[in-house]
């Protein structure tokens, strides 16, 4: 999603009204209920959220010059900066060591990388197809990517072939290095 992305793709920047900010926060909590205790710390009441509209109808939301989450369609997707701050709040899957290299260059995650001994998937019932997940790696603390499941975790376990996760945002992509002045 952010393979080609630069300052030129920014169409407009504007400050978000506080009422809209409130609905955004509640939406974020609805999507990720575990964020509730820290939401005020992430987006303080007094802070100003900035909305950056970009090419391809991507919208970034920034607090204090840091992109915290973005949105392509209806769903809010957390950026890695936010995920690193509070990784427990998001549904997590884990890839093995061999896959890290490919994930960091932006490849979709293949099923075998999710089912090998170094990787981990949640116990049944797991996550549904199309769910948003963050991707951790074997023996690493911080998550390295945010993606969307292309099949449910149970299917990944049983089929074990082909694309498992569509990568949306990873360490070192252009959104990661995107800096606001």
């Amino acid at each position, binding site marked *: 999603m952010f393979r080609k992305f630069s300052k030129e793709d920014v169409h407009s920047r504007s400050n978000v009204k506080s009422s809209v900010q409130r609905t955004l926060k509640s939406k974020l909590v609805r999507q990720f209920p575990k964020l509730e*205790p*820290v939401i005020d*710390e*992430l987006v303080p009441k007094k802070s100003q959220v900035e909305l950056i509209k970009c090419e391809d109808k991507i919208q970034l939301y920034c607090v204090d010059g840091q992109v915290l989450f973005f949105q392509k369609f209806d769903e809010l997707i957390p950026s890695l900066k936010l995920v*690193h*701050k*509070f*990784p427990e709040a998001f549904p997590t899957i884990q890839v*093995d*060591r*061999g896959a*890290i*290299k490919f994930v*960091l260059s932006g490849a979709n995650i293949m099923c075998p990388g999710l089912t*090998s*001994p*170094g990787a981990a998937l949640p116990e049944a019932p797991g996550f549904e197809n199309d769910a948003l997940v963050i991707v951790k790696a*074997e023996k*690493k*603390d*911080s998550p*390295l990517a945010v993606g969307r499941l292309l099949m449910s975790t149970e299917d990944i376990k049983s089929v074990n072939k082909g694309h498992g996760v569509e990568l949306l945002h990873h*360490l*070192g992509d252009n959104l*990661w*290095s995107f800096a606001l*002045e």
Partner: protein
Amino acid sequence: MSLRNVIYCGICSYPPEYCEFSGKLKRCKVWLSENHPDRFAQEYGSAETDETAAKLAASSIGDEREEKLEKDLLKLQSKQENREQRELAKKLSSKVVIRREARTKRKCMVAISGLEVFEIDMKKLAKTFASKFATGCSVSKNAEKKEEIVIQGDLADEAEAYIHKLLEEKGMKDVKVEQIDTKKKKKPTTDADASEN
């Protein structure tokens, strides 16, 4: 329940545990040992050799794949280093050209080109010049379709001093900054301007 504070590597911007995948591992290690020595010890251990052996033993993806991965990472690293060296050489060999162009009898303008190699934001610099010298300053494309900064007024020396300072801050002291003085050129645009007036 509180937020985590993740350290980001100053060299490759990843969290330190992913530095090995960035291809800049050597410089990352130096940075980490200088800035976060405790984290460095935790990440890379005290004895380097023991650590890799332990990693191999504990690895879940099999010795063969682990070896291949290690090889690929080394390759990536050397590639990255070569690229950096090339870029540095390019930077050192290129130069900044400051051209003073006379416009009318006592008026002139200054055009600065060759800055894009040094990762300087031209628009920002133009804005700084405009407010620093209280004059008009903009970024425009020159005859070779390269971007250049155009300052109105006879400010070549001041601009040169400022650019020298800027380059020194970036650690590139030996970059040449050249001044050229061109006499009034007959440009079609300036002619048109003159006839309008």
